[in-house]
Structures are given as C-alpha cells and as structure tokens.
C-alpha cells in the first residue's frame, strides 16, 4: 500500500517509516505541514498518518479540513500527543478516521493503518464472509466450518465477524474492544483474551488448522487463505 507519513519528529518518523517499509508498504514522508498538504492533495495514497502538531504554520487538523474540503476522502489516522477526549473528538470531527495517542506501540499503529486502508476498499455490502473453510452467514446469523454448524453466542458471533472482516490483518485488543464492545478505554486486565480463547474453543479446537492466531505484542489475526 502507499502510505504518507506527516510527522516532524525525526526519531518517531524514522521509526514509523522504517517499520511500515519493513511490513511491505511504499512510504512517503513529509516533515512539515505545507509539504504534507501538498503531497496528500497531489498524489494518491491508500492511507495517511498525520501528526497534529506540525511546524510551518499549517497544523494537522488544518490539513485534514483542507483535504476534506477538496472532497479528498483518503483514510487518515491522526497521531497525537494530545490525549484528552475532547481533542480526540475534535480530530475525528475534523474528518479523521482514527486517532492514536503517543506513545503508541508500533504494532497498534500498523494494525490500525492497514485496517483503515482496507476499509476504504470494500466492495459493497456482503451477506457472507468466507475464510478457508469457515463460513459466516450474516443474514441467517449462522456459522459453519467444514460443513459443521458452530453454535455461537451473539457476542461471540460479533467477535468472529470482526476478525473475519479484518482477515489477514493484525487486530489489536483495543480495536476489538472498540469494534465489538463499543468500549473506548484501556482496561488494565486482559478481558479480551478470555473472550478470544472461548471463541477459539468453539471455532479452532475441534478442527485441524487453527485460524485465530495470536500476534505477539500486538493482538490477534484471523489467517487468510494460504498463498
């Protein structure tokens, strides 16, 4: 994917750019607001990582407002040291798609950016999600693996649906809490792990190939088709 990183701090920018390139993406970098706006507006990217505090007179939010004003709907992830809830709301209201506060774990950033970019490319409403031999029917709310019916609680269904929609991508615990439980805080205990392990009992354990993978220091991933 083509990703634009607009960040003025050299260390953070280097860290992010290198990490993204290692993950196989094409990355462009701007270290001030004016260049960032120019590049975002003139080239096409799959996602933009935008810092809020930028030198050059144009800050992150202004860039965002300008892009949206030009009907540019590129997915934007806002990176900010401003962690208050009001700032988060401000950022999302200005047109941001996701908001990550510093300091952040790189795995979290990668997972979210990839999820954002993928989101921009959906092909329209689907009625069925299929990964390998796992089938999830959104209309009848039924799950089948290798032809066998799996009985899931409503919340477990939602959890599996989220993982399948992000198949092949890293999904962090925070993303799961937000996407499945609509809970926006970081609980100290690993409540998510318990739910995922229950899901695994039903979806993976009775079958030869485990689909739900744990990604160390990041979260989980539902494995997509083998290449």
């Amino acid at each position, binding site marked *: 994917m083509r990703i634009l990183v607009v960040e003025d701090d050299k260390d953070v920018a280097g860290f992010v750019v290198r990490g993204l390139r290692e993950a196989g993406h094409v990355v462009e970098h701007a270290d001030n607001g004016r260049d960032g706006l120019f590049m975002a507006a003139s080239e096409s990217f799959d996602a933009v990582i935008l810092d809020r505090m930028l030198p050059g007179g144009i800050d992150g939010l202004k860039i965002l407002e300008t892009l949206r004003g030009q009907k540019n709907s590129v997915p934007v992830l806002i990176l900010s040291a401003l*962690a208050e809830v009001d700032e988060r709301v401000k950022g999302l209201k200005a047109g941001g798609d996701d908001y990550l506060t510093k300091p952040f774990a790189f795995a979290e950033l990668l997972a979210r950016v990839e999820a954002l970019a993928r989101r921009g490319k959906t092909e329209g409403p689907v009625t069925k999600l299929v990964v390998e031999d796992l089938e999830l029917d959104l209309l009848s709310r039924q799950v089948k693996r290798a032809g066998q019916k799996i009985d899931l609680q409503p919340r477990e269904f939602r959890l599996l649906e989220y993982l399948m929609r992000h198949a092949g991508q890293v999904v962090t615990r925070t993303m799961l809490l937000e996407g499945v439980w609509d809970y*926006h805080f*970081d609980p100290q205990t690993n*409540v998510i792990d*318990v739910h995922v392990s229950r899901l695994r009992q039903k979806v993976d354990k009775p079958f030869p190939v485990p689909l739900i993978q744990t990604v160390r*220091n990041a979260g989980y991933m539902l494995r997509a088709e083998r290449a």
Partner: protein
Amino acid sequence: MFRSAGVRFAVVYALLLAASAAALALFLWWSTAGLLDRQTETAIRADAQGLSERWEEGGLPALVLTIDERLSGNVDDDAVYLLTNARMQRVAGNLAGWPSIVREPDTWYELPVQRAGILSLALVWRYDLPGGYHLLIGRDVQVRAQLRRLLTDALLWALVIVAAMAVAGALIVRSLLRRTLANVSTTANAIAAGDFAQRVKLSGRGDEFDQLAEVINDMLDRIGRLMDGVKQVSNAIAHDLRTPITRARARLEEASLRASSPEALRAAIDRATADLDGIVAVFQALMRISEIEAGSRRSAFATLDLAPPLADLAELYGAVAEEKGVTLSADIPERLPAHGDRELIQQAVANLLDNAVKFSPPGGTVRLQARPAAAGVEVLVADQGAGIPPEDLKRATERFFRGESARSTPGAGLGLALVQAVAQLHGGTLRLEDAAPGLAATLSLPAPEEPAHG
C-alpha cells in the same frame, strides 16, 4: 479619572440631579413669572377691547375721556397709556412721549419707564387707529422682572449647590464603593500572595455584594479542592511512580552493563518497554481523572439508556469471571433512562467490576445490580472478597491509595479515584460499604434538573 467606576456613578448622579433641578426650575418659572406674564397680557388685551369699543361709540373725545378715567381710577398705579396723532404728538395718556423703541404694532415690548424718579419696567402693546392715531397700552411688570431676577439668582445658587453636592456625592459614592470592593480585593490580594485559606467576608445583609462574595468564596473553595488534588497527585507521583521508573531504569542499566547475550538484552528491553507502558497508563488515568474533575466533559451530557452499556459490561467481564471460577450475576432492567456521559459511566462501572472480579475468591459471586432510584439511577457492584477494612473505607477513593491487603495485586490504585471523579462530575455519589464479607460499591447518579424532552 473616568476609569473609576465610583466617579462614573457619581457623575451620573450629579447630572441626574442637575437635570431634575433644571426641570423643576423651568416648571416654577412657567407657573409663576409665566403666569404673571399671561395675566398681564390678558389684562392689556381686555383694556384694549374696552377702549376700542369706546372709540367706536364716541370717536376721539370718548377715547380721551376714557383714558383719563382709567388713569384716575388706577389705584395700583400700574397702567400706561399714550394716545398720539399722526405726528406723534401726545393727545392723552401718562407717558411723556412716544418711546422710540416701540416701532411695530402687534408686538410686545418691554419698556423702561421712570415713575417719580424710580426706574421701572412696563409691558406695552401698540395699536394703530384709523385717522393716523397711535395708541399705546401697557402695564407695569416690575414685579415680574424682580421675580425673574429672583429665580435666576436662585437657579444659579442651585447650580452651585448641585455642583458642590455632586463633588461631595462623587467622593462619598466612590469611597462607599471602594470600601465594599476593598473587602473583595484585600482577600484576592491575600490569596494571590499565597494565603489560600482567606475568604471574602460577608456583611450579612444578603445584598448583591454579599451574593458576589458568596460566589467568589465558592469559586475559591473549588480552586482549593483542585489545588489539593494537584498536591495529592504530586505527592503520589513522588511516592508511587518513582518505583516503576526506578525499576525500569535499574533493569536497563543492569542489562547494559551485564547482559550476556543478545537475547538477554532483548528481554531486558522488552521488560523495560512494558514498564514504560505501565507508567504511561498510570499517567493517562491520572489525566483522565483530572479532566473529569475539571468538569470539561459536562457539556457532553445527554439523556441515554444505561441498560445496553451495562449489559455489555456484564458480558465483557462475565467471561473473565468465569475463567476465575467466579459467578457474575447481572440484574439490569429492560430500560434504564439516565442523564450523563455514556463513556464515563461505562468506565466507572468497568473499574468497579474489574476490582470486584479481581478481589473475588474462586466460587464467589459478583453482583451487578442497576435500578432506577428516587433521585435518578443506582448501580451496585458487590463482591465477596476481602473487602476494605473500615478504617480504610474513607481513603479508598484517594488517588494511588492501596490498602494493605491490596498491595500484592497489580494496579496503581486509581480505579476508585476515577469512579469517584465520575460520580462527582454527574453530581452524584459513590458509596462504599462493607458487604460482610466483601465490598459493596454503589454509584448513584441523579436525574437532570429539568425534565428530559422527547
């Protein structure tokens, strides 16, 4: 000078006074001297009417005779007549000659006259008669002139007095205002200099200044509480956060000096990262609590149904409880209308549930019960664990407070502080009671003041 509010008030007062005095003087003039004027004019006109009738009846001789008669009967000695022919020669009347200033007919003239050596003033009117005769009729208006002079003098004196009163008033009003405001400003100065226990004194009259003083005192109380909160945090940071920071630092230093392999180094770095994350989480929670206490989120309040988010939380923590062998029983009504910030309430209840599950023994039960109450909504989270000893109950909601029994479990001790902050922001309360055994935490949220719309 005009920046002083006291002087401004005084100036307004003085001008009002001047305006009222002027209005009064004008009215007085109109009703006295003005009245005299009108009376004199009416008398002269009536006189003229009478004389003209005589003229029509009997011509010149009759007029001359009438004038003479009138003069003879003028006991008040205030009438002035003069009848001249076309050549301005006197025919009848009591004026020596035609006054030069009386040139036009049908106009009032004020004529200085001399009576027996005394200067006086007469109001006269000229009539032109057929045959070229000119008739002058008038009355003495010396009285009016004197009255006018009297009123002018009085007015001028009044203006002087008003000016003096204005200056005095200005000084009095300014000192009055200063004295009342001095109370507030001395207190403010004392506080600015650092004596935070000062409060504005109330005069006890219950007037607007007292109300202002009360508002200021309330504000000072609140600032005092916030400052205490900050002090608390600084102390807590000094005490409780240096430990993980020191630990992380020590680990890194040791790894740097004595690590034997790349894997050991990597492990040390990973642990240090985890430590740092932990510290950041504590700071985030602290900031959150401060944010909540500062009240900035109150504007995001809305009317909402608490039942779904509470059910979600019960389900979220239900799995964790099950893993530990603890039963989570949830008693939530179909609909639970409330007023507030959904995310904050969620986080508060989550903290309570987290604590309850964490401290519950295997086989125990954690109860989550929500119901509408007389004044809003009540959410109860009760566990059967070790509970909080009675002497610690009061301090449990302090930041970083961890009872002796809890020292071994992970956590920074901020959970209850956050719940307390959320309760306070909503104008509600957090009650901690001994559930014998265990802890029962009740979060009470009041209903909004006005009835919800829609």
